[in-house]
């Protein structure tokens, strides 16, 4: 009890010393860096509240803050290393990962490399970032980071192979004696891997995103076993300051795509080294550059490329990744973002208004003409009307003109009703990429972009359905319905077209229904009054007034009589024999209906 106030006074003194070191730490990177002073947590309880556990410091990219647990600083006795610790944390903000976008990109690369053990990505990402920052501070900015590690490692058990390898990498980078950080458990393989890791850190110090895959592949063998991984985590927990740095952030775009550059960086440096060894005598050629690089298409298939041109991750993998980047991310928003990112290249361009002057200039009264004004602006007629005696600057007048613009007649784009079959035969779009949902996203977003209203409806009947509250303009609500999943019934429920929203819709509406062969059983089904659903389809089409299209995953010629009946009503039936053809359909549909405002079919 007596010691506590003394400790708290110590903590305050440490906080003051660290606060005093802050401006200098900023200056190490750049005096123009504008970061707020860290949040000082005076107790571990406060630190836990901020999400800081295990380590004594962490960063948040969401509000560009650094959090320091002063009590743990004292526990680890690192109070004399304020400059190094603060400069390191600033490095996370200015060098790596620096922002949410690059942080997610880093996770993406590391996860592809860590196939099957993707849950280790935050750990590997943190270790890689620390190496890049510390090496820059130690070598380029002459800050003695080795002293901090020597101090911390003196009291830390080094038993796991990952830990030995990681610390041995620092020894390589900074020319420290063997075992000074990595302890006595040395193995030739770890030594060789650490030397390769040091080379990766040096080579990719600037383009660090490109080196992440190589680094993760070096770490891979030390992380396969759960026990090894857990042991390494426990031992390294004091260094983990950026694992959750993007928590609570906005979802960065473009993360669903796996581009070629990423796949090219998923190379094991050991294979590169062996390739250069086997290419003895040919070092002057670029043999090592060609080392063991599998073809991109092979890499794409093993890393689960899907969607247009197999360029995207599966939505389930994407959601898992983004939840690692930001554990508090909302799954609905993530899946919306996923389909939106894929649809973006296929949307119609934003509509533009073209205005043309009706008449070049319209006369609009007069102003005084003064000596010095252009002589051609002098209006002699108006001047003579003021006075027959001309006094420059007094009686002289000039004509004022204004430009009149045409207000062209604006055509209203058709509203869009998108009904998608979400019966048991459809993919869950949250786990696997779904072509119908991708197509629905493209047409819906194009319609919204053109200024139309959209109503989306998922239906798997008999069973469940989910629809937006009428025709709306909210992209998020439309996508939330489309990307949900029901998995009930056998087809799209035609009775959904009896919705009051279609009865009272303002403006013409186009009905788009995406389903398969089973829709004909649904159309033939009868309601309690003995009327076929065909009648509902016909009535809805008439009320909508903007035409209707059935997109069926089927073959032309099947259900010939039923198709003819639909066509007589005015429905257009479009067949796709492979789901991927829906992309081309959606593109053409959006182009036909929504490129330029109100273009009619």
């Amino acid at each position, binding site marked *: 009890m007596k010691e506590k106030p003394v400790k708290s006074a110590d903590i305050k003194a440490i906080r003051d010393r660290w606060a005093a070191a802050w401006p200098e730490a900023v200056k190490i990177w750049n005096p123009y860096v504008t970061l707020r002073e860290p949040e000082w947590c005076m107790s571990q309880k406060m630190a836990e509240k901020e999400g800081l556990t295990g380590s004594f410091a962490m960063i948040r990219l969401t509000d560009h803050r650094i959090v320091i647990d002063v009590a743990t600083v004292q526990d680890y006795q690192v109070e004399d290393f304020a400059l190094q610790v603060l400069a390191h944390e600033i490095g996370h903000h200015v060098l790596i990962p620096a922002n949410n976008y690059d942080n997610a990109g880093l996770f993406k690369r590391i996860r592809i490399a860590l196939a099957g053990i993707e849950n280790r990505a935050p750990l590997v990402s943190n270790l890689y970032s620390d190496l890049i920052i510390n090496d820059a501070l130690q070598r380029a900015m002459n800050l003695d980071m080795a002293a901090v590690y020597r101090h911390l490692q003196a009291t830390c058990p080094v038993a796991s192979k990952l830990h030995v390898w990681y610390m041995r990498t620092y020894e390589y980078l900074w020319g420290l004696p063997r075992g000074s950080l990595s302890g006595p458990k040395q193995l030739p393989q770890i030594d060789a891997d650490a030397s390769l890791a040091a080379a990766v850190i040096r080579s990719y110090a600037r383009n660090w995103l490109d080196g992440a895959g190589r680094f993760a592949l070096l770490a891979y063998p030390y992380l396969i076993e759960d026990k090894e991984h857990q042991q390494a985590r426990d031992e390294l927990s004091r260094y983990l300051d950026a694992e959750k740095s993007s928590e609570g952030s906005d979802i960065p775009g473009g993360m669903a795509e796996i581009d070629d550059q990423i796949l090219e960086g998923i190379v094991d440096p050991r294979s590169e080294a062996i390739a250069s060894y086997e290419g003895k005598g040919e*070092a002057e050629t670029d043999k090592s550059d060609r080392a063991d690089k599998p073809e991109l298409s092979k890499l794409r298939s093993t890393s689960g490329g899907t969607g247009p041109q197999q360029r995207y991750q599966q939505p389930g993998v994407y959601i898992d990744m983004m939840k690692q980047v930001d554990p508090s991310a909302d799954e609905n928003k993530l899946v919306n973002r996923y389909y939106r990112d894929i649809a973006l290249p296929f949307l119609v361009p934003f509509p533009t208004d073209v205005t043309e002057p009706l008449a070049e200039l319209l006369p609009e009264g007069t102003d005084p003409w003064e000596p010095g004004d252009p002589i051609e602006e002098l209006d002699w007629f108006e001047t003579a009307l003021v006075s027959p005696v001309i006094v420059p600057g007094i009686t002289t007048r000039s004509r004022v003109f204004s430009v009149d613009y045409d207000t062209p007649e604006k055509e209203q784009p058709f509203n869009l009703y998108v009904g998608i079959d979400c019966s048991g035969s459809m993919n869950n779009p949250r786990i696997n990429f779904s072509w119908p949902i991708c197509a629905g996203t493209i047409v819906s977003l194009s319609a919204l972009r053109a200024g139309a209203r959209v109503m989306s409806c998922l239906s798997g009947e008999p069973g469940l359905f989910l629809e937006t509250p009428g025709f709306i303009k909210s992209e998020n609500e439309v996508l939330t319905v489309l990307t949900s999943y029901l998995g009930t019934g056998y087809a799209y429920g035609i009775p959904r077209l009896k919705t009051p929203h279609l009865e009272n819709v303002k403006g013409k509406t186009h009905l788009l229904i995406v389903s398969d062969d089973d829709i004909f059983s649904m159309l033939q089904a009868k309601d309690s009054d003995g009327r076929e659903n065909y009648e509902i389809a016909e009535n809805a089409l008439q009320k909508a007034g903007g035409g209707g299209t059935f997109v069926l995953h089927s073959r032309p010629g099947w259900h010939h009589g039923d198709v003819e009946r639909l066509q007589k009503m005015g429905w257009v039936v479009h067949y796709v024999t492979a789901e991927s053809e829906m992309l081309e359909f959606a593109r053409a549909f959006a182009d036909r209906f929504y490129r330029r405002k109100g273009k009619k079919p």
Partner: protein
Amino acid sequence: MKKAQNVLNVPNVSEMIHHIKQCPAEFLGQPDRNGRSGISTEALVNDTVRTLTADDTAPRPIDITAAKRSLAELSLQQICCWALSHPFFRQIDDGWLRQFFCRGLSEVAPLVKPEQWVKDEERAEELARIIFAACGHCPGGESEAEAADRFDSVNTIKRLKVIEETKAAMERAQEIRRQMAEKAAREAANVYSRE
């Protein structure tokens, strides 16, 4: 030929690395292996040996048989000629030079791109330590054990031998990774596929 060593001031590794990285572009030119065009490595090596042995008129002290050596080795020999221009090497015994130029570089040279010796910090350190080990001196400020351990750390030949020896383990890890990736891709493709 033995020179006085009582005031020998051995440079430390950092100094040698700095010296190696200052290598002029002329030493990095394409070696002339067939007597057509490029730098005559043989002439360069012999000039270096003449300078270090202080015997300016010695007729071709070393025959390096350029035609039999790889371009990488000849390039490394040229870089070594620059490295040996450090004043320290004029103060020490020169008996090691013949062995060094004829046999000392043939194994490591093909493993590293020539420009890496002067661009990459670690390779420059390795070259400095190769030269120190060949001339039988420890870098300034290091004990024999420290120098040997550090040389081990940057030794390309040893590193590659370890990687070769552990190739089976590496390939096993790669195979596990490949199988895991394929399994995940397969599951994703099949589990929820259409009826």
